[in-house]
């Protein structure tokens, strides 16, 4: 038992656990709509787009969170805007933007000649969460959770029958941009936990695992949040005891949850 409780004597571990759990739950809750609206690629685009913003913020000496925030929100709005241009297929814009942004990020990293300092951006460092980072994570998670509760029924309609939503006067574009912006905010906090490369996994894998076990939306959100918490805690412990990269450990733990769900579901498929 003490193996589980020992790490909590350190304040930085308490912060890391809190941050990992909040980020995991937020990613799972929002990820439910991301997966069901088939927007996984958009999450992928946003996570990669954060990199140049973080590098610029680093070069300017300001919080890399703020750089990621600006870059992802701008990208989210850019994707929304490009998707409205009927001459550009939506998957083309979603496929194009992250690569361009990632390339800009890598170019900027190479110009700093300091790969070491920036590795946390790519792969995350949950044990390095500062009190200021935690406050930002709590504010963003709280705001996103409130938005999910307030607009839950419209979000469901947007997923299942967007035309009906438009026909009854629901401001479709506003909701779509809103979802993109909240997705961008979630990506920003996810980056602290698992880095730019792996954040999309945290948005998608717990939900994909939950979807294997239930076909009810409420249960799916709860199960995916539970998987996210398990993955987050596993990542922090793995990082503490074995010195493993926390981001990769969190994502692999989530992948194990998916594997477990797949095995559990096997008998019902026969």
């Amino acid at each position, binding site marked *: 038992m003490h193996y589980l409780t020992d790490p909590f004597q350190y304040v930085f571990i308490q912060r890391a656990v809190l941050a990992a759990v909040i980020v995991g739950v937020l990613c799972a809750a929002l990820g439910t709509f991301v997966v069901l609206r088939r927007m996984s690629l958009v999450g992928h685009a946003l996570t990669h787009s954060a990199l140049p913003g973080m590098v610029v913020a680093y070069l300017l000496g300001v919080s890399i969170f703020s750089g990621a925030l600006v870059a992802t929100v701008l990208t989210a709005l850019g994707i929304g805007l490009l998707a409205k241009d009927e001459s550009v297929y939506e998957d083309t814009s979603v496929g194009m933007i992250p690569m361009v942004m990632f390339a800009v990020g890598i170019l900027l990293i190479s110009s700093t000649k300091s790969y070491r300092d920036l590795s946390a951006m790519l792969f995350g460092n949950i044990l390095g969460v500062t009190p200021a980072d935690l406050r930002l994570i709590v504010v963003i998670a709280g705001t996103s959770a409130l938005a999910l509760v307030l607009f839950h029924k419209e979000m469901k309609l947007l997923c299942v029958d967007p035309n*009906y939503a438009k026909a009854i006067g*629901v401001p479709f574009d506003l909701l779509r941009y809103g979802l993109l912006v909240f997705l961008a905010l979630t990506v920003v906090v996810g980056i602290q936990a698992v880095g730019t490369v792996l954040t999309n996994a945290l948005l998608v894998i717990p939900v994909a695992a939950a979807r294997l076990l239930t076909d009810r939306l409420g249960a799916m959100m709860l199960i995916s949040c539970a998987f996210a918490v398990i993955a987050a805690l596993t990542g922090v412990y793995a990082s503490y005891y074995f010195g493993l990269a926390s981001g990769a450990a969190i994502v692999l733990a989530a992948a194990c949850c998916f594997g477990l769900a797949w095995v559990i579901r096997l008998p019902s498929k026969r």
Partner: protein
Amino acid sequence: MFSYCRHRHSSPDPQAPALAIKGLEVVYSGLRPYGPIGPEGGEKPALKNVTMRVPVGVSMALVGPNGAGKSTLFKAISGLLPVRSGTVRIFGHRLGACHQRVVYLPQRSEIDWQFPMSVRDLVVTGRYVYLGWFARPGKEDLLRTMDALEQLGVADLRGRQISKLSGGQQQRVLIARALAQNADLLLLDEPLNAVDAETRQVVARVLEGIKAKGKTVIVATHYYDQQEGRFDGAIYLKDGQQVDALSH
């Protein structure tokens, strides 16, 4: 209290027809695969110079082959597609002024049937136009939902996930949502396409009931010959243009 659109409770003009369309032109633009491209690669109207007047309380068939523009016309009336030119008046009001009075029943393929949602939850979305932002469905909304499900003979499916419905059941559930909305103008896009005989009978009975309540129904179909007696008239579309209008 917080409605989706500030005009949603416009009262109908008692003198106005349910639907009055004059010189309607709708254009798909760009390179999307579903948008017709003109011979020079530019825009080609999906609907051109469509004019019609549908009085209150009648049932009309909108007849035409696939690609004639039937769904486009319904989408334009529902405010889903921008109108290039011409006017559309619904119960005497401009488009979007009375969302709750019009319901568009899309073809089944336009719904994400894999979304995790129960039949009851889908049908209750027909009440959202009255609820607006933040409000949750109340007792009356649930009663109307159950009543609509019973009329369509699918009340026993209320707890079933929509992913587990047959084609006929899907169609009945969509019509139940239209009933739950209690709209005065119903635009039904191929409601009898590829459904079982029992569903055809139930839908036909429900449509007669709707008409008996003084509501207006327009049904898009390409099998008019088999259903001629059910309608008060027909409007024919071909290649986005109105060919003829017929009143029985």
